[in-house]
């Protein structure tokens, strides 16, 4: 899976915007949106919010968790715990990137938020690598991926699957006779 596909999925997440135009309810396959009234906040998917923002038709309200204090707390917790801590949104990385790139003027302390989210991401990736290593080391058969987000799984998926495949083959060498039948008709 490509990161841009993950980003595409993330664009379905709802964000609050304050439009500066008025429009009746619009009916889309994904659901009804609106009605839009100037000054009244309304939930729309991220893709629409960004589109309206680029045409300067709205102001985006950052999600609750996108706040320096809350993120600092999360970072501290993430560093303290050995396991993965619950994330505020399954697409926190993608949403942060999209919002900060396209609507950084609507988000207070954008730079600090960018650093904090990146810190949380790095801590989680380091943990993911650590757990992948112990997974391989102890030759476990299954692992729990609680609280991991799609983007995080996606960065390591190809590598981890290839190594597990490889390790499985080496392990099947251990049982003699398991695949020896193929030699006789060589």
């Amino acid at each position: 899976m490509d990161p841009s596909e993950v980003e595409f999925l993330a664009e379905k997440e709802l964000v609050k915007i304050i439009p500066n135009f008025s429009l009746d309810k619009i009916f889309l396959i994904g659901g009804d949106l609106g009605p839009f009234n100037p000054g009244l906040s309304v939930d729309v998917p991220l893709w629409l919010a960004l589109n309206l923002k680029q045409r300067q038709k709205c102001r985006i309200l950052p999600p609750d968790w996108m706040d320096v204090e809350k993120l600092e707390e999360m970072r501290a917790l993430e560093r303290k715990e050995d396991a993965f801590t619950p994330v505020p949104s399954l697409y926190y990385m993608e949403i942060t990137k999209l919002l900060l790139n396209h609507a950084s003027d609507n988000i207070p302390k954008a730079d600090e938020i960018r650093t904090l989210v990146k810190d949380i991401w790095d801590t989680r990736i380091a943990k993911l690598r650590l757990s992948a290593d112990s997974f391989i080391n102890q030759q476990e058969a299954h692992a729990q991926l609680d609280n991991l987000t799609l983007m995080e799984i996606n960065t390591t998926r190809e590598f981890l699957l290839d190594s597990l495949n490889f390790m499985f083959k080496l392990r099947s060498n251990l049982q003699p006779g398991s695949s020896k039948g193929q030699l006789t008709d060589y």
Partner: protein
Amino acid sequence: MSTQSYFPVPPGVGMEENFLSLDDILLSHERLPVRTECSFPRLGFLERSSDAHDIPEGTKMELPLWLSKGLYERKRKVLSVDLPKVYKEGWRTVFTADPCVVDLHKMGPYYYGLGSQILHFDSPENSDIAQALLQTFIGRFRRTMDSSQNAYNEDTSALVERLDSLEKALFRSGQNGLNSFQSWEKGQASQLTASSLVLNYRKRKLADVQT
């Protein structure tokens, strides 16, 4: 989006081989020390060290893996296969002591592949070899993972030079994940680029004109 105009067949690893995998074809040319258990008449030209017409019983020579696999039979002893020195007891202890310090590229470069293929020839040490292969891989896993997921935008030749060919493939897939994430983060993923198919198509056309 990653577009490749050519998808190579991956190596089979383990006991089986993939017929169309280039890596497995190269692997089948690795030489194994063998000892003949019966005489091979008129095949003296294979053994360059003597001018004899036949290969007598008990000659020690090196044969490629594909030939030894074909000639080897459990019931009728045609030849017995000796272990290459990397899979012998002495080296196995080195691998178990610290798998990270060994230069598998120099030892192999098909250390895992050849090691698994050797299990075809019934040797009393088979289970030890299989165990050593697995433990070597597990011991080296962390290093392969860390180097492949951290080396961004730098020369990786120093990192891969000591890796086995299979570990190199792993390294590449790790780099793939890292690079595609980084290019997304920098915003390059949203730029449109020409498909590699189109680029190759143009190249081919030019070649047609020249001939």
